[in-house]
C-alpha cells in the first residue's frame, strides 16, 4: 500500500464542481473544507443514484418475486460486485455490507473472537489505532479472558516494528488488528509486514482500511489479509453503509454476529441454521439504497482513478508541510512526507486545538480539533489533542493558504 506515484493528474477545481456542498457560502464565506478524513462530501452523481433508486427501484432485497423487488435486489447485488472488484476479493460472497468500519471490526471481534479466544491468547493491536480498531479488541479480550496488547509507536507516529520479535516469541498471538493509514497523522503503515507476522504466528490479520480505501488501491488478495473494513461515507458514499471483506474460509466457519431476518436457512424453537455467505452476516433489512449509492461512489472514484487522487493529495500534503513548517510556534506531528497520506496534524503553542478550529471556522476553514478517536496515540505524543487538516480529491491549494491565514489570525486573537 505504498504511495503509487502516477503521472495522471486530476483537475481538482473541475472535480469540485461535482460537489453541491461547495455551491454555498457558509457564514458568508466559501468553504475551505479540510476535514475529509472524518467524512467526505458527496458528488451529485452519487446523490442522483440515491434518488433514482428510491424513485424507481426501491424495495427490500432477497425476498420478493415481483419485478420491483427483483430490480432492488439486482441493484444491491450489483453494488456488492462493484465492491468486490474495488478490493479485488475472490468472490462477492466475501463482501459483507455493514453500517461502517466500526461495525465491520465489531463483527469480527464478536463473531470470530467470542468463539476463538480464551485465556492465554493474545490480541494484538497498536497505539496508532482509531478507537474503533482498539476498543472492540479490548472488549472481546475482557469477555474471553484473552490478553490485550498494543504495539508501541515512535515519537513520529510510526510503529515500532522491532517490538514484533519479542511479541512473536512470547507466543499465542491470535489476532493482529492494525490500521493501513493513521487517521491522526497520515502514517502509511507497512501492513504487509504485519499480515506476514500474523500468519507466521497463526493469527488472523484484520486491517482497518477506513483511511486507506478512499485514497489508494486496495487488493485483498495481494495483501493476503483475513479481514478488511472500511466506510462508505469517507469515500464519497452515503452515511449508513460500510464494508467488511472477509476470507470466505473464515466467514464460512464463523458463527453469525447479528441474527434475524434474511440470514437464516431454517428456524425452529429447537434449532436454527444459517444462510450461506454473505447473507449469514447481514441480519435484517440492509442499507439497500446506501449500498447502491456506494456502488455509484465506487464508479465515480474509479472514473477519476485512485492513483491520481493519491498523487493529488500527496502534492497538497507536501505543500501543507512546507507552509506550516514556516509558522512560528507550530509543532507538526507524524512521519515524513514519503510515508504519509493526505493528513497533517499540528498544534499552535499556547492555543488549544478547539480554539484554533473555532477561529479557523470564522474564516470558513473547516478542520478537526480533538483526539480524533486516538487517545492512546495522543498520550504517546504527549498531547491531549491536535488540530488536523485532511485532503481529498476536491481539495485545493487555496484552501491550505486560507488555513495559513487563519492560523495567523488565531495567533493574533490569543496574543
Amino acid at each position, binding site marked *: 500500500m505504498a504511495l503509487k506515484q502516477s503521472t495522471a493528474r486530476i483537475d481538482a477545481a473541475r472535480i469540485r464542481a461535482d460537489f453541491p456542498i461547495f455551491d454555498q457560502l457558509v457564514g458568508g464565506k466559501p468553504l475551505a473544507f479540510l476535514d475529509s478524513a472524518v467524512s467526505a462530501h458527496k458528488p451529485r452523481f452519487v446523490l442522483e443514484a440515491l434518488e433514482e433508486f428510491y424513485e424507481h427501484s426501491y424495495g427490500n432485497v432477497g425476498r*420478493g*418475486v415481483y419485478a420491483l423487488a427483483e430490480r432492488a435486489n439486482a441493484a444491491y447485488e450489483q453494488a456488492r460486485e462493484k465492491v468486490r472488484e474495488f478490493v479485488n476479493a475472490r468472490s462477492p460472497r466475501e463482501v459483507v455490507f455493514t453500517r461502517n468500519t466500526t461495525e465491520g471490526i465489531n463483527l469480527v471481534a464478536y463473531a470470530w473472537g467470542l468463539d476463538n479466544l480464551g485465556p492465554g491468547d493474545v490480541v494484538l493491536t497498536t497505539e496508532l489505532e482509531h478507537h474503533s480498531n482498539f476498543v472492540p479488541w479490548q472488549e472481546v479480550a475482557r469477555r474471553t479472558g484473552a490478553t490485550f496488547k498494543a504495539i508501541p509507536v515512535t515519537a513520529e507516529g510510526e510503529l515500532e516494528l522491532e517490538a514484533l520479535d519479542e511479541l512473536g516469541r512470547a507466543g499465542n498471538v491470535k489476532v493482529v488488528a492494525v490500521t493501513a493509514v493513521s487517521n491522526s497523522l497520515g502514517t502509511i503503515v507497512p501492513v504487509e509486514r504485519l499480515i506476514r507476522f500474523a500468519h507466521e504466528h497463526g493469527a488472523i490479520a484484520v486491517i482497518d482500511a477506513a483511511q486507506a480505501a478512499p485514497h489508494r488501491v486496495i487488493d485483498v488478495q495481494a495483501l493476503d489479509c483475513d479481514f478488511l473494513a472500511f466506510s462508505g461515507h469517507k469515500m464519497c458514499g452515503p452515511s449508513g453503509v460500510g464494508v467488511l471483506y472477509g476470507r470466505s474460509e473464515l466467514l464460512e466457519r464463523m458463527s453469525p454476529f447479528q441474527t434475524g431476518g434474511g440470514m437464516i436457512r*431454517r428456524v425452529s424453537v429447537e434449532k436454527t*441454521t444459517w444462510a450461506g455467505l454473505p447473507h449469514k452476516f447481514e441480519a435484517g433489512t440492509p442499507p439497500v439504497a446506501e449500498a447502491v449509492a456506494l456502488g455509484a461512489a465506487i464508479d465515480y472514484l474509479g472514473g477519476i482513478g485512485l492513483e491520481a487522487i493519491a498523487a493529488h493529495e500527496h502534492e497538497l500534503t507536501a505543500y501543507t508541510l512546507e507552509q506550516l513548517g514556516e509558522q512560528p510556534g507550530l509543532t507538526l506531528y507524524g512521519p515524513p512526507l514519503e510515508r504519509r497520506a493526505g493528513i497533517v496534524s499540528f498544534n499552535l503553542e499556547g492555543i488549544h486545538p478547539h480554539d484554533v478550529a473555532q477561529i479557523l471556522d470564522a474564516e470558513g476553514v473547516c478542520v478537526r480539533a480533538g483526539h480524533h478517536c486516538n487517545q492512546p496515540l495522543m498520550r504517546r505524543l504527549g498531547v491531549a489533542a491536535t488540530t488536523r487538516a485532511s485532503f481529498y480529491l476536491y481539495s485545493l491549494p487555496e484552501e491550505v493558504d486560507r488555513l495559513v491565514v487563519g492560523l495567523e489570525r488565531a495567533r493574533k486573537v490569543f496574543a
Partner: protein
Amino acid sequence: MSVDDLYRELILDHYKSPRHRGRLDRADACAEGQNPLCGDELTVTLRFGADGETIEEIAFEGQGCAISQAAASMLSEEVVGHKATEVAAIDKDDSPLVAMMIESGTPLTPIRLKCALLGLGVLKVALHKAVGTPLPEEWTGVEEVEFE
C-alpha cells in the same frame, strides 16, 4: 418474461405429475436442502449402479413452487444413467428447466433462478457427501441439515 412463457405446459405438467417423486430406501446418497427465501424444501435420495458412481435410481421429495418442483422433476429424468462427476459438473445454465427458459429467450430472474436451482443444489450436496464431488459455491460452508 410473460407469465405464459414461465408457466408453459411442460413446466405445469412436471409440477402436476412429478417424475421420480418420493424417497428411496437403502439410498447410496441423500441430502435435504432449503431455499431460505421461501422455505421450500427438497430431499433427494439416489442409488448408484454397480460401478458405484452411475446414478441408477433417483427420487425427489418436498414442497415448493411450480418452478422448484418442475425443475427437480425435469432434472431427475436427465441425470439417470449419468456419473456423479458428470452431474456435479452441470452448470446452472444447463439444468433442464433453466436451459429451456434461456433458449426460449425468457431467462429466469435471479430470485426465481434460486427456486429452479434448488433441486440441482441438493443433488450436488448428496453426491458430495457420498462420493466427494465438488459442492457449488453457494452450498459451501452451509451447515448441512442431516438426513435422518
